[in-house]
């Protein structure tokens, strides 16, 4: 009954978006490049996430597969019992009493996972920023928390080798709030095993590896800025939670993080590093200003708290952008990027972007009008709220949460004048909010983590009288990330990816083609070889920025080989040491050989990934058989 209603609701929304079938069309055609293009437009996949994400996560046909039999059945059974209880007790469908949830989980056959206490601690403080419908109603939130806890617990009991990390709950909560009931578990499962797996070992090494790659990427993209950043922090630790949680811990609204997931899920796992770089580069002016003010730590505050984002097209109203109105918004924006950030990339950017097969001219206008249409059909709640009230895509059977259609690029009028003034093309105003805070006892949002940001974001327009950093356009940042990928693909030697990333990292094992990926069981088994996820990398910090790191490569490789052997000698037997050495060589060959192929086609993500994955698969075969 309830499910039927939800289905009707979904159909209704589908009807509203007749012109927006591109995504499902691309999914049907398994067209990854098209999906990548669609993921960067304003609003991303919109309401079509429920078909797009399961496809992108390779979770599509999983609901009744024979593989999941036991635990899936247990989960379903559990949910059914909950629902029954819930309806008896008059609790709104899909939710259940906390105590009952615990008891039910305990009585299920699966054994408790050692991390369940930590999971509980974190799910008990989840859904802080969204969905907004629950902010005033603690009971609603607790129900959501309990259900999220059930979902996460199911995954960890099913895959006992996975370890929980704080922030994992943020990632899963995005899936939880986006996908329909039957998709949540299979998608969260695949996400964990094939995208988040590196972070689910015991240590932080894989994350440190990503931070190192980010550091090198920033050096390439903007050497001058990189010097500033490295003067303040040896690694870009401010991006730690971005990389670890795929931005889900840091983005204050659901529509924005959903859009970021659209982008990331349609790209290989390494894409998150490029996006983190785009975010970091976009704040150069603020960061420079802040450093001049001489506050150690404030830079961390600035950069670890993401800028205010918009997901719309308001920047197209910007005077500066109008001057050069071109058919292709991307090239235009790339130019502005170059100008504004004084990148050393100027010519290259334009050339490369032309090569990128992005969506054609006029697309943005279409999107805008589509969304304009959709606005009227959106279920409103708490109508007078601020810009972040863009409606959330709710899964059909959590309709009790006031589900609503996504209206991704619906900009709130009251913000417009301010935002126009301070949109991307304008000079970045001084980051005074943060600096004031250092002297007044009253620290503003920028000194805090996300909750305060949401506070800021949910503030009415009147509070905008404070000088604030400009709001950045998310589509712009996403495209910037793609540009960076085109300019500095993973094969780029200066990124040192082949020396940092091990063959069993998701960076190497992930594939667009599910047949080329490790099975779930193989993926889980990889947890037992952390030394194959992240190599023991000798950081070449002695190489000054700007100097060609390749000049040292001979020395580095000798050093690396030495450390590598030593490391392996400690924990593994001789046979494995030998295999490991071969593996390292194989990865290097695969990564570097892509450079030649990808030379004039930097955006060829698929090809790049293929090379990486081939090696990964080969390695997997060796080690799983061991």
């Amino acid at each position, binding site marked *: 009954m309830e499910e039927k209603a939800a289905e009707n609701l979904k159909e209704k929304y589908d009807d509203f978006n007749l012109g927006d079938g591109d995504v499902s069309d691309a999914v049907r055609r398994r067209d990854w490049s098209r999906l990548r293009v669609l993921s960067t437009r304003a609003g991303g996949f919109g309401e079509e996430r429920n078909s797009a994400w399961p496809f992108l996560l390779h979770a599509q046909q999983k609901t009744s597969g024979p593989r999941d039999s036991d635990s899936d059945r247990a989960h379903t059974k559990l949910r059914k019992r909950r629902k029954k209880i819930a309806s008896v007790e008059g609790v709104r469908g899909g939710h259940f009493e906390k105590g009952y949830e615990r008891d039910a989980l305990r009585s299920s056959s699966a054994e408790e996972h050692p991390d369940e206490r*930590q999971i509980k*601690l*974190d799910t008990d*403080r*989840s*859904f*802080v*920023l969204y969905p907004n419908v629950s902010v005033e109603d*603690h009971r609603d*939130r607790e129900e959501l928390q309990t259900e999220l806890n059930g979902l996460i617990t199911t995954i960890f009991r099913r895959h006992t080798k996975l*370890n929980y*990390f*704080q*922030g994992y*709950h943020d990632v899963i909560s995005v899936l939880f709030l986006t996908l329909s009931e039957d998709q949540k578990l299979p998608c969260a499962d695949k996400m964990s095993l094939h995208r988040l797996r590196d972070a689910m070992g*015991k*240590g*932080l090494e894989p994350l440190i590896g990503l931070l190192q790659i980010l550091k090198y990427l920033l050096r390439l993209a903007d050497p001058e800025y990189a010097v500033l950043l490295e*003067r303040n922090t040896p690694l870009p*630790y401010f991006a*730690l*939670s971005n990389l*670890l*949680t795929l931005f889900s*811990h840091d983005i204050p609204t659901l529509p924005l993080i959903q859009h970021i997931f659209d982008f990331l899920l349609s790209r290989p796992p390494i894409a998150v590093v490029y996006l983190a770089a785009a975010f970091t580069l976009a704040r150069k002016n603020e960061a420079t200003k802040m*450093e*001049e*003010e*001489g*506050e*150690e*730590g*404030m830079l*961390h*505050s600035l950069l*670890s708290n993401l800028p205010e984002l918009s997901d719309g097209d308001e920047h197209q109203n910007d005077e500066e952008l109008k001057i050069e109105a071109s058919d292709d918004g991307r090239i235009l924006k790339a130019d502005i990027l170059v100008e504004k950030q004084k990148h050393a990339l100027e010519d290259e950017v334009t050339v490369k972007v032309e090569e990128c097969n992005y969506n054609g001219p006029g697309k943005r206008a279409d999107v805008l009008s589509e969304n304009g249409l959709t606005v009227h059909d959106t279920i409103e709640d708490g109508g007078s709220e601020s810009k972040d009230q863009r409606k959330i895509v709710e899964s059909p059977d959590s309709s009790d949460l006031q589900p609503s259609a996504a209206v991704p690029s619906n900009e709130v009028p009251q913000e417009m004048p301010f935002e126009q003034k301070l949109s991307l093309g304008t000079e970045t105003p001084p980051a005074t*909010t943060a600096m*004031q*805070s*250092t*002297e*007044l*006892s*009253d*620290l*503003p*949002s920028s*000194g*805090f*983590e*996300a*909750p305060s940001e949401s*506070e*800021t974001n949910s*503030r009415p327009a009147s*509070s905008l009288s*404070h000088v604030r950093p400009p709001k950045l356009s998310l589509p712009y940042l996403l495209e910037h990330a793609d540009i960076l990928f085109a300019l500095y693909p993973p094969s780029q030697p200066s990124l040192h990816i082949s020396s940092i990333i091990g063959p069993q990292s998701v960076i190497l094992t992930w594939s667009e083609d599910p047949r080329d990926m490790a099975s779930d069981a193989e993926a889980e088994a990889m947890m037992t070889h952390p030394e194959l996820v992240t190599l023991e990398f000798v950081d070449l910090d002695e190489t000054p920025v700007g100097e060609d790191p390749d000049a040292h490569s001979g020395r580095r490789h000798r050093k690396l080989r030495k450390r590598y052997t030593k490391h392996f000698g400690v924990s593994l037997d001789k046979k494995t040491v030998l295999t490991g050495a071969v593996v390292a060589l194989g990865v290097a060959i695969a990564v570097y050989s892509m450079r030649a192929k990808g030379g004039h086609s930097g955006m060829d993500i698929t090809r790049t990934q293929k090379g990486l994955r081939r090696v990964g698969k080969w390695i997997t075969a060796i080690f799983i058989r061991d």
Partner: protein
Amino acid sequence: MAKQYQFKLVLLGESAVGKSSLVLRFVKDQFDDYRESTIGAAFLTQTVALDDGSTVKFEIWDTAGQERYKSLAPMYYRNANCAVVVYDITQPASLEKARTWIRELQRQADPSIVIALCGNKLDLAARRQVTQEEAQKYAEEEGLMWGETSAKSGEGVASIFTSLAKKLPQTAPPPQTRGGGAVRGAPGARAAVDLNSNTNGGQDGCNC
């Protein structure tokens, strides 16, 4: 001209004992019933005025509690002048964790570091599992400052930081006093801060 001091403070402790809430109370005098877990670390500052007219500015690194982030902690306590190690008075295991942190600080941090042991969640005293005597005795043995707080009610929060502020100038290396302006760019350089520029502006300037 009154003296102005600037100290680096690091918060350590097990997950969910209330480190971030304690800082939020101290810095903004606020409390959220729901506060997200900290990932990596967060940085905040707060200035305390002392009775003798001097002011102490804390640069606070609020760290993540989960064990897996432990390897990042040295980065934050390395040059810290003081540390607040937090436990939850309703969770005996969290005091054990606090002891571990304190041992690590005593071994690895700057020898002059001033450590305060802080029993949080005093508002839940009805569910208390760690007695004051036990914690206080341990603190005395180790030469730590000790106090109990409730980030929720605010009880004890200001006093623990103020006590630190009072103790610090005597024990820490010569504090930075006020300079002429911002120091530019030099690695590791920290600017002396003009604390007077904003003290008379009222609160509404950045109440966000």
